[in-house]
């Protein structure tokens, strides 16, 4: 289990050679306590600048916390950094993290050596990973000739070279084509089933909803909510939107719709048919359909749009102070 307790990270005000820039220090992470269990995908969400990448870099031993503790299976990430590094790996989207003038296979071979992967198993693991990320045909091509997506796929293979017990994924599907991103999600889900603990940040919230059993939402370094994606969305009491189109106008229907107590917008569609848009914290689709039919209306279209995790995150993130 990865456990962070009261994690804080403060960046000092920038200095030039001769003077301070005049800015103030930045608190990127502010008292964050998280648990990332093995065998599950945990999400870490927030708007840009929320502190997600800093948190991941601290857990990955790349940065030291200002205060607070982080342990990985009981190992302290500052004191036992080398032992922690054997148990984790980080895949960051949109960053190179691989050598452009080596081939894909040479990159994995080199990183395998850095992780002390036994030579007897390294060759087979490299082939397996190249297959996994769809690069077997480009294995012996220089990375500088790879497309951005291919580099990202190689970076994913690099992140799996040491068979980490915990995988930190910072926007892993950034820049990937949809089929490759889908394959990666399948790989992540499979790794979690096999017992790997995964911490995922992603701007693609559908990805988070699909993979994560538990999500932490942070804003300006502070934890603002946590729970399953469904619970988080329900907890915000954001409105469900129901769009209704009738075959023809019926005064009794308008009365029935109004009686539901929701916020209602009325109008006409392109073919001149009456439309209703209802917004309510509860899903009123069933009640609406029943009321319309009882009032003698003929439904042409009924579409329900529940609030998404993205809506919930935006609602939770307080507006940034104007300075």
């Amino acid at each position, binding site marked *: 289990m990865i456990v962070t307790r009261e994690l804080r990270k403060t*960046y000092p005000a920038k200095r030039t050679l001769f003077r301070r820039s005049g800015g103030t220090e*930045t608190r*990127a992470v502010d008292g964050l306590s998280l648990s990332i269990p093995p065998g599950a995908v945990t999400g870490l969400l927030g708007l*840009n*600048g*929320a*502190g*997600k*990448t*800093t948190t991941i*870099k601290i857990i*990955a*031993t*790349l*940065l*030291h916390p200002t205060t607070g503790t982080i342990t990985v299976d009981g190992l302290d990430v500052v004191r036992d950094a*080398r*032992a922690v*590094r*054997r148990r984790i*790996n*980080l895949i*960051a989207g949109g*960053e*190179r*993290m*691989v*050598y*452009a*003038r*080596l081939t894909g296979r*040479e990159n994995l*071979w*080199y*990183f395998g*050596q*850095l*992780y*002390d992967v036994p030579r007897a198993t390294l060759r087979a693991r490299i082939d397996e990973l190249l297959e996994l990320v769809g690069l077997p045909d480009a294995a012996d091509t*220089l990375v500088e000739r790879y497309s951005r997506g291919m580099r990202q796929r190689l*970076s994913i293979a*690099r992140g799996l070279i040491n068979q980490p017990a915990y995988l930190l994924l910072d926007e892993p599907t950034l820049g990937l084509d949809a089929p490759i991103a889908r394959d990666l999600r399948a790989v992540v889900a499979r790794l979690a089933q096999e017992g790997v603990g995964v911490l995922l940040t992603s701007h693609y919230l559908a990805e988070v909803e699909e993979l994560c059993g538990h999500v932490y939402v942070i804003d300006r370094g502070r934890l603002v909510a946590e729970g399953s994606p469904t619970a988080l969305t329900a907890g915000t009491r954001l409105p469900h939107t129901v769009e209704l189109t009738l075959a023809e106008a019926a005064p009794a229907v308008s009365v029935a719709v109004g009686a539901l107590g929701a916020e209602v917008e009325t109008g006409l569609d392109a073919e001149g048919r009456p439309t209703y848009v209802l917004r309510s914290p509860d899903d009123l689709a069933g009640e609406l359909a029943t009321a319309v039919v009882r009032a003698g209306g003929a439904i042409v279209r009924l579409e329900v749009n529940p609030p998404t995790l993205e809506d919930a995150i935006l609602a939770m993130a307080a507006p940034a102070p104007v300075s």
Partner: protein
Amino acid sequence: MATAMPTLRRNWLVTMRAYQWTYFVGTLATGILTVGLAYLAYHSIGGGRAGGGFAAAAGTADYLGYVTVGAAASMFTVRMVLWVAKAQITEQREGTLESQVLAPARRLPYLVGVGLQSLTTTVVEVVVMLAFAVMIGVRLPAPDPVTLLAAFVAASVAVFGISVPLSAIMITAGEAHITQNTLFVAMGLLCGFTFPPAYLPDPLRWLGEALPVTSALRALRAATLDHAPLSAAAPDLLLCLALGLAYLIVGLRLLGPAERVAIQRGGSA
């Protein structure tokens, strides 16, 4: 060595793909030019003789031999500093510093791997440069092999040692050119590559002694020009090793915090 040899192999692959022959020509040309210009000055201006003052200051009247050994040491120093000191900032520029730091491999064997590449390259380059020197008429006396080997090892430790804190400075500052060129100018002035440090004022001479390259050069010249036995060169060898190891230890302690500064500068969100 589990990290050193793969790093050596990686660097060779990258170097041969990126620079091919241009990688070797630059340093070699500098060495050949140094010896060639010294040869011209010695014969055209000095009339084929060094002044008595030179012999007193350098401990030898063999000006061309003195410069040839200095040029070889300079090639070796520049090559080692350029590669070892710039290893981490090159990783940073190529976007691989984080994946490098993320791995459990230690920094010392990684830098040793980079240093081994410099070493193998320099040996070839120095042989070519010495062949040129012999071709234009520089007479190189047979060295004392044991002293030469010891001096070579000590010089390698010294230059490697001084490169490690320099690497920390480079990634902390986020730049390489000012740092490396400042060191090159300081070493060129203080260490005695092409003229005896005895010509310098005392404060500069003492400053030069703080750089292990100065004592390494004395040991190398003792082995090659004076055919000195190991016992005669031992004080310089020990000083050179002690200074080199001191720089190395300081550098290794600085490297971790320097890497974190570099990674922090890379993104703070």
